[in-house]
């Protein structure tokens, strides 16, 4: 319920929300947790394994219990911490892991079976029969245990990714962080101050302490006003410390508001900082006593935060159970606000009893009652057991510095006996320094002082001059901790003391782990699952290892901690992958002819990042095969037009350009005359084939290399490497001109006629024999023409600057259609080139040599990249699989990927003779054709081989031939 006059929420601004189907009203400034508590909702979910009713434990991002599903239309987000989720009008949330409701959950039967369900029980129990594990046991167990659920739909929410750079990143906007930021801002540093909360201030907003005579919130406002040059990032959790001063951070951009168009839900930031201050504060830890998980048992700091920040009393009669002096402030704040405090149970023998309520020094809570909400507690005090009626128990087992970021480079923290907690060591992450409570400095005045000192050191590390900054007046409360980790119960089958609320891990589980020999802290973690829930052990790590230490007779520092890994708080994959959903996965590359092809209903096929038309369907054609066969016939009998702009084009210039080409190509190019094109084969350094293509000599010392579409980037990188590594002093410059030119293949017996109809001057055939090239003019535009063919017909490729690409493509198509021709796509292109035995990367797949392809004669006498390696034994000879053509003896479908066997041999790996790389159904020759690699294949032309595709159940005899089926003499090319 609300407490009059307390809190930073605006009760005059009521906010309606819905939880588990019921409507409630909260206030501006509330979190879902504070609003539920204000409305008296105590059970907010069920526990992971035993389905125990659970209530809010904390007021921070470490919350292990109050995890809910947020529902926004189709969007359903599980495991949202109600303590972090800010309230907005119309918010809809529901509890998790329960059926039918949080207050009545059928699976709570697990709790009654709990003596059988200890850590590791299912690994031991559900072993037989073995095959039942995947099919039966695991699915059933998974359904019974667990947290939130997903909608099963695509996440259509908006997410963002961004980069930020600064001199100093201050993580945490509490007293220490504010002081560090203030010092750095005054010195002129570029500062980012990030805090996971909706408001800057940290514990200054919740502890009710004064700074410089001002209330905590007022001083925070004043401090922020004094540093206008600081970039303040609220709702931003720094989640990981990575290399070279890079930090990951998750900003909750729109999650505190009703969904709006284009407003990202979250933004994943990569922040690069020269220096960083870790002012992340500390996390209060619970004490493990019997049945310490009931709704109403909370952390003292949470009770205080709900009172001072949200104006909510978490109970009518609150009891405090603490092992330290500082927690007394919570009881005092409650009493000052008019909330009844039933008692203070102080585990310390010599603790003061001077309070305005009963104090039991040297006492412990040994039992609780109230299944759906705490009703009473049993306290052991001086040999007696006292029963206290109470509906909220505020627990403080001391504080752990929030040192996670400092450990992200695998540095291990050190144990500080004075505060009974692990503290970071200096230098665990280069450039990151802990300040305030995160460094183990407890007390407000000390934190302010620490923030100033660390801020000053950071400024000096940045090479800036510090300006004087006064530390404001504040007092330190005494901490006075005497460790208490575990209060044993009376035993019994159902008696449990919880350590990890989120994963339902109890003291008994940790002891069982030790008993079973899992004594290393990392083994204990995996055996019990302690620390593996969404809170990643923030509430339980130190207590669990204290229990483990006790069970194994070691000290806590000897026992050590588990590994801290990013992220500090859960990060949605959607935020990390922002922009990468669907087509955002990679850029789309469109041809200048794209629109014209789409208008002709051509389905697109992806070639690298390019979208290329697969075929151009005509009315009446119902399959791609029909369109493909028509297009092949069209090219063979009339003329076809195909956009080949995707092929890589590299412009090379310089007096050593020819020499460079000789070096990177297996064959010779320095002898190529201007106006001529030559086919080239490029080898990798290991002697295998890298790529093929044609290179044209445009002018003396000026060449244009083409590469295959897929290898364009690869070849460019290779050329760069060769130039820089082997011949940096040669006069050769090269640059990609792939995108500059739109290039169209015009192929078929009528190709020349078609070209002559668009060119300003008819082709001078003396200039354009087969493998000739030169400049032409097409409708007033300077173009380049290459007489090359990938189809086996008389073929040309005409290139114009890309701005004219679409216009020329449409024009060529219209004219071709008038002549009985038209466009052809990738499917037809593939069949045409298989008929002609031309290569693609299906054949040049990285494991073949020039010898395998029958191109060994292309390796010229001169030196070239890969030549030496290609001469190694084993890379040539009859044992190699060599390129051949195949045709089924009786025509039938054959497949790429099928393997080849000698007829009569058994079909098994050891008898493998090779494999098929490309197939096509040839309308020209009638029937299926294939290109394949066959052992000693060139000597086996005319033989039959057995083709077996196990995957598709194909088994047939094929006749071996040379790879060129169509026009082997090449007469058509040269027509």
């Amino acid at each position, binding site marked *: 319920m609300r407490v009059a006059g307390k809190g930073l929420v605006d009760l005059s601004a009521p906010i309606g929300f819905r939880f588990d189907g019921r409507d409630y009203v909260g206030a501006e400034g509330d979190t879902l947790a504070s609003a539920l508590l204000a409305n008296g909702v105590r059970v907010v979910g069920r526990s992971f394994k035993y389905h125990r009713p659970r209530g809010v434990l904390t007021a921070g991002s470490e919350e292990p219990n109050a995890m809910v599903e947020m529902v926004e239309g189709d969007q359903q987000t599980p495991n949202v911490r109600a303590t972090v989720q800010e309230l907005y009008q119309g918010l809809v949330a529901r509890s998790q892991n329960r059926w039918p409701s949080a207050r009545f959950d059928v699976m709570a039967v697990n709790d009654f079976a709990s003596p059988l369900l200890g850590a590791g029980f299912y690994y031991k129990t559900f072993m037989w029969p073995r095959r039942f594990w995947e099919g039966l046991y695991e699915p059933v167990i998974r359904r019974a245990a667990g947290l939130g659920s997903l909608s099963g739909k695509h996440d259509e929410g*908006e997410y*963002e*990714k*961004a*980069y*930020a*750079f600064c001199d100093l990143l201050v993580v945490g906007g509490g007293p220490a962080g504010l002081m560090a930021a203030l010092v750095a801002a005054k010195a002129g540093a*570029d500062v980012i101050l990030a805090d996971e909360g909706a408001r800057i201030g940290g514990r200054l907003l919740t502890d009710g302490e004064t700074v410089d005579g001002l209330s905590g919130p007022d001083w925070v406002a004043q401090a922020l006003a004094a540093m206008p040059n600081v970039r303040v990032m609220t709702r931003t959790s720094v989640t990981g410390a990575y290399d070279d001063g890079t930090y990951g951070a998750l900003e909750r*951009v*729109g999650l505190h*508001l009703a969904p*709006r*168009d*284009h*407003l*990202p839900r979250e933004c994943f930031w*990569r922040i*690069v900082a020269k220096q960083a201050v870790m002012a992340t504060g500390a996390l209060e830890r619970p004490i493990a006593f019997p049945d310490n998980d009931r709704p109403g048992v909370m952390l003292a700091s949470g009770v205080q935060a709900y009172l001072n920040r949200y104006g909510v009393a978490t109970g009518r009669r609150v009891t405090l159970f603490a092992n330290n002096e500082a927690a007394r402030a919570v009881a005092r704040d409650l009493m000052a606000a008019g909330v009844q405090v039933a008692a203070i149970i102080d585990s310390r023998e010599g603790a003061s009893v001077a309070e305005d309520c009963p104090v039991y020094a040297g006492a412990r809570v040994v039992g609780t009652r109230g299944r759906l909400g705490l009703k009473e507690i049993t306290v052991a005090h001086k040999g007696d057991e006292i029963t206290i009626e109470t509906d909220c128990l505020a627990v403080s087992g001391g504080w752990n510095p929030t040192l996670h970021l400092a450990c992200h480079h695998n540095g291990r923290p050190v144990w500080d006996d004075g505060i009974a907690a692990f503290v970071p060591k200096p230098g665990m992450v280069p450039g990151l320094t802990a300040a305030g409570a995160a460094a183990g400095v407890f007390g407000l005045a000390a934190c302010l002082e620490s923030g100033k000192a660390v801020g000053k050191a950071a400024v000096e590390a940045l090479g800036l001059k510090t300006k004087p900054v006064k530390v404001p007046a504040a007092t330190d409360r005494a901490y006075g901790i005497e460790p208490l980790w575990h209060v044993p119960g009376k035993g019994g089958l159902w008696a449990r003391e919880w350590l990890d609320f989120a994963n339902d891990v109890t003291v008994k589980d940790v002891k069982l782990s030790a008993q079973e020999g899992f004594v290393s802290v990392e083994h204990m973690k995996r055996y019990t699952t302690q620390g593996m829930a969404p809170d990643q052990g923030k509430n339980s790590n130190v207590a669990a290892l204290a229990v483990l230490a006790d069970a194994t007779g070691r000290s806590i520092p000897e026992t050590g901690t588990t590994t801290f890994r990013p992220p500090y708080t859960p990060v949605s994959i959607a935020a990390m992958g922002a*922009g990468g959903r669907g*087509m*955002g996965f*990679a*850029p*789309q*590359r*469109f*041809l*200048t002819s794209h629109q014209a092809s789409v208008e002709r209903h051509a389905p697109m096929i992806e070639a690298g*990042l*390019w979208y290329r038309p697969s075929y151009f369907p005509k009315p009446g054609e119902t399959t791609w095969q029909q369109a493909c066969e028509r297009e092949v016939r069209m090219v063979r009998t009339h003329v076809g037009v195909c956009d080949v702009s995707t092929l890589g084009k590299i*412009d090379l*210039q*310089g007096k050593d350009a020819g020499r460079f080409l000789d070096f990177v190509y297996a064959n010779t190019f320095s002898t190529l005359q201007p106006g001529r094109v030559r086919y080239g084969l490029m080898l990798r350094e290991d002697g295998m084939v890298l790529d093929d293509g044609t290179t044209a000599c445009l002018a003396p010392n000026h060449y244009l290399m083409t590469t295959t579409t897929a290898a364009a980037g690869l070849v460019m990188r290779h050329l760069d490497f060769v130039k820089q590594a082997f011949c940096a002093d040669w006069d050769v*410059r090269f*640059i*990609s*001109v*792939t*995108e*500059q*030119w739109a290039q169209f293949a015009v192929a078929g017996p009528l190709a020349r006629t078609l070209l002559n109809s668009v060119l300003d001057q008819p082709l001078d055939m003396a200039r354009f024999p087969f493998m000739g090239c030169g400049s032409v003019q*097409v*409708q*007033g*535009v300077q173009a380049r023409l290459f007489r090359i063919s990938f189809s086996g017909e008389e073929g040309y490729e005409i290139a*114009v*600057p*890309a*701005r*004219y690409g*679409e*216009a*020329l493509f449409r*024009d060529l198509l219209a004219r071709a259609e008038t002549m009985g021709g038209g466009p052809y796509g990738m499917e037809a292109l593939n069949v045409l080139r298989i008929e002609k035995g031309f290569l693609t990367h299906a054949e040049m797949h990285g494991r073949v040599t020039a010898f395998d392809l029958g191109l060994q004669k292309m390796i010229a006498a001169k030196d070239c990249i890969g030549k030496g390696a290609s001469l190694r034994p084993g890379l040539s000879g009859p044992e190699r699989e060599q390129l051949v053509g195949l045709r089924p003896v009786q025509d039938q479908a054959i497949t790429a990927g099928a393997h080849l066997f000698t007829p009569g041999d058994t079909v098994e790996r050891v008898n493998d003779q090779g494999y098929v790389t490309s197939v096509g159904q040839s309308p020209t020759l009638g029937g299926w054709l294939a290109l394949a690699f066959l052992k000693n294949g060139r000597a086996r032309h005319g033989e039959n081989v057995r083709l077996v595709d196990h995957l598709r159940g194909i088994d047939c005899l094929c006749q071996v031939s040379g790879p060129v089926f169509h026009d082997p003499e090449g007469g058509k090319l040269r027509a």
Partner: protein
Amino acid sequence: MPNLIAKSALFGQAPLTLGGVTLAEAPLGEMFSVAGQGKALDKALGKLGLVMPAPNSCAVGTGGVIVWTGRDQAFLLGDGSTLAEVAAVTDQSDGWAHLTLEGDFVAVLARLVPVDLRGFGVGQALRVGLGHMQAVIFCTAAARADLLVFRSMARTAWDEIAHAMQHLAARRVVGL
């Protein structure tokens, strides 16, 4: 006189203004890559009021804008054909889509470009990743960034930049 219709990469695309930033496609112009070094090149560039730019820089001269793009390489937004005798020159006019961002472009680019843009201003140039593609970004006037991306990727670049602008504008509406 060319009789073929010329189209820019994003022909017909209207400028987009959101949150005080305007994204637009620049008109089709001339652009040449110039690769080389030496006195002859310096002299020829001098006639255009230009020098070979230092890494990560650009400059404006009488002959156009010159932008560093790599080792011994620059792009001249202007007529580069006069340099063909003294450097390796290629026509790149149609190979790249030219976009401009006017207004507070830093916040927009900080969503897509993983480099420190604090202090990025007039006279500076970057060769940098933009989302999943590579880009040349340069600045010749205050509060304006020029971006060059591969022509074929212009649609993706536009969509990604526009998306970032939408996010920023939506943030602004709620005061973030």
